[in-house]
């Protein structure tokens, strides 16, 4: 993972090549996402960047009818709501992302505990296109 640094923007640089990166503490073994230079468990600074599987489980979610500006620009609104959630990765750490391919017309049907796999999402149109993290059911 030498191509990525601990600088926080590099998390998105990695995403552009479909890689989900985090960091691993060489002292205590803790894994965190996004990657960072200080280990939040032992507070040491002996960490390295690692790649994660992108597999995880849905921990919490919402279906949003009044979108953020970014999501409104991506075409979402009250008639076309979207799901976003917090995902527990198989390696331990948790992260937020849009949840695709779930039935947003029936929020009650979306199950906490659903197994997910990461995907990347392009938003922002041609001019400002950026890559974002998403998940979909396995």
């Amino acid at each position: 993972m030498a191509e990525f640094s601990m600088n926080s923007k590099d998390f998105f640089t990695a995403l552009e090549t479909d890689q989900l990166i985090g960091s691993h503490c060489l002292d205590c073994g803790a894994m965190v996402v996004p990657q960072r230079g200080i280990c939040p468990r032992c507070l040491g600074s002996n960490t390295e960047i690692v790649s994660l599987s992108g597999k995880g489980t849905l921990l919490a979610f919402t279906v949003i009818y009044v979108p953020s500006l970014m999501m409104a620009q991506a075409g979402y609104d009250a008639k076309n709501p979207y799901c976003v959630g917090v995902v527990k990765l198989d390696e331990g750490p948790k992260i937020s992302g849009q949840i695709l391919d779930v039935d947003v017309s029936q929020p009650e049907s979306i199950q906490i505990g659903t197994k997910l796999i990461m995907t990347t999402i392009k938003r922002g149109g041609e001019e400002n296109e950026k890559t974002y993290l998403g998940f979909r059911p396995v």
Partner: protein
Amino acid sequence: MSESKWNRGVAVVGVGLSKFGAFKEKNSRDLFVEAYLDLINSMHRYDPKKVEAFYLGNFSSDQFEKQAHLAPILASWVGLSPIPTVRIEDACASGGVAIRQAALAIASGQYDVVLVGGVEKMTDLEIAAVTEALATAADTQFEVPAGFTFPGFYAAMASAYMHEYNAQRDAFYHVSIKNHSNGALNDKAQFGQTIRSIMESKKARAAQKGRPVPEWEDEIDFLSDPKGNPMIAWPMTLFDCSPVSDGAAVALLVSEDLASTFTDTPIYLVGSGQASDGALPERETLSSIPAAEEAGRQAYHMANLSPKDIDLAEVHDCFTIAEIIATEDLGFFERGAGWQAAIEGKTARKGDHPVNTSGGLKSKGHPVGATGVGQVAEIWKQLNGIAGERQVPGDPKIGLTHNVGGTGQTCVVNIFERRDLNG
């Protein structure tokens, strides 16, 4: 015995509030003056020349009014220059943290008399811009790009809470109904109407316009109908969310030994706690707010009190789920029991644990920086028995404020006590 490490105690000797609402004609400084005049006019022995410092809680006049560096402007506008002025920003907890920092500054010995203000002027921006500004209280590098909005964060916490404790959605509606019924008795409140009266006026308007009149049986029926109460971020509806507000609040803090020279009815800051956290994914749990629990633990320890000693609390109900979680984080109810307690009316004004007698953020309004200071104003009124129609019965002596920034990245809890003169 108190467990305080503080060098000396701190008392509140006066409070002031502007009306909360949407005021086109007023800027931050005008709202602040309104609250400051309310303080002056309610105190007999206020001498502005004794004020030694000013602490301001403000979330983001930078974004809302294109005005940073607001603290010295406000102090100058009421003639308090050249006293030291400090703006504190911890998102929606800015006001509560300002109270705590002012208290620490008094405890240090540096100042004897400190004015604390809180203000936010939010309604000048378009609603989309307000939403973007509020989102900056969360992690805009990693959380907001996922697509989250501010209601969305709390909605996700609600999903985890409902899943973990099998909670019913009605519980949220009961919080909203209760807070509106309290706010209806508060003349400073932005939405001082009961949910029932809102429902009835919607029916009346439909009838007036010759449209079919909705057949809502009661408030729950009304709130359950997306036509009356649209979904914002499932499971949070419009009436689960606090509004966008303009408003200001002030409180005058002094060292304990000076309290009686300012007022006959001081209340004492006997416990204070504050804690921080990372973004939602950094936490062990999503069905509670760990930093709120930690702040409460510190405050109880310092005050040598326990949750059962608290006669009433103003908690941070930016969303209805937040109030339910707060009542558990603060130990009023067991984990997972808060939603049932809300349905059973235990947090009502005459319940076992009165919560948000002011109407809370939901009904009183949520001018972000003012909120934490405004909470102290309500506790002042309740402990001094001057809350009028919304007065909590039973001569309350101990009140608590709980102020949350973001989704719990900052939490501050303060506990106030009235001491009887002969006590």
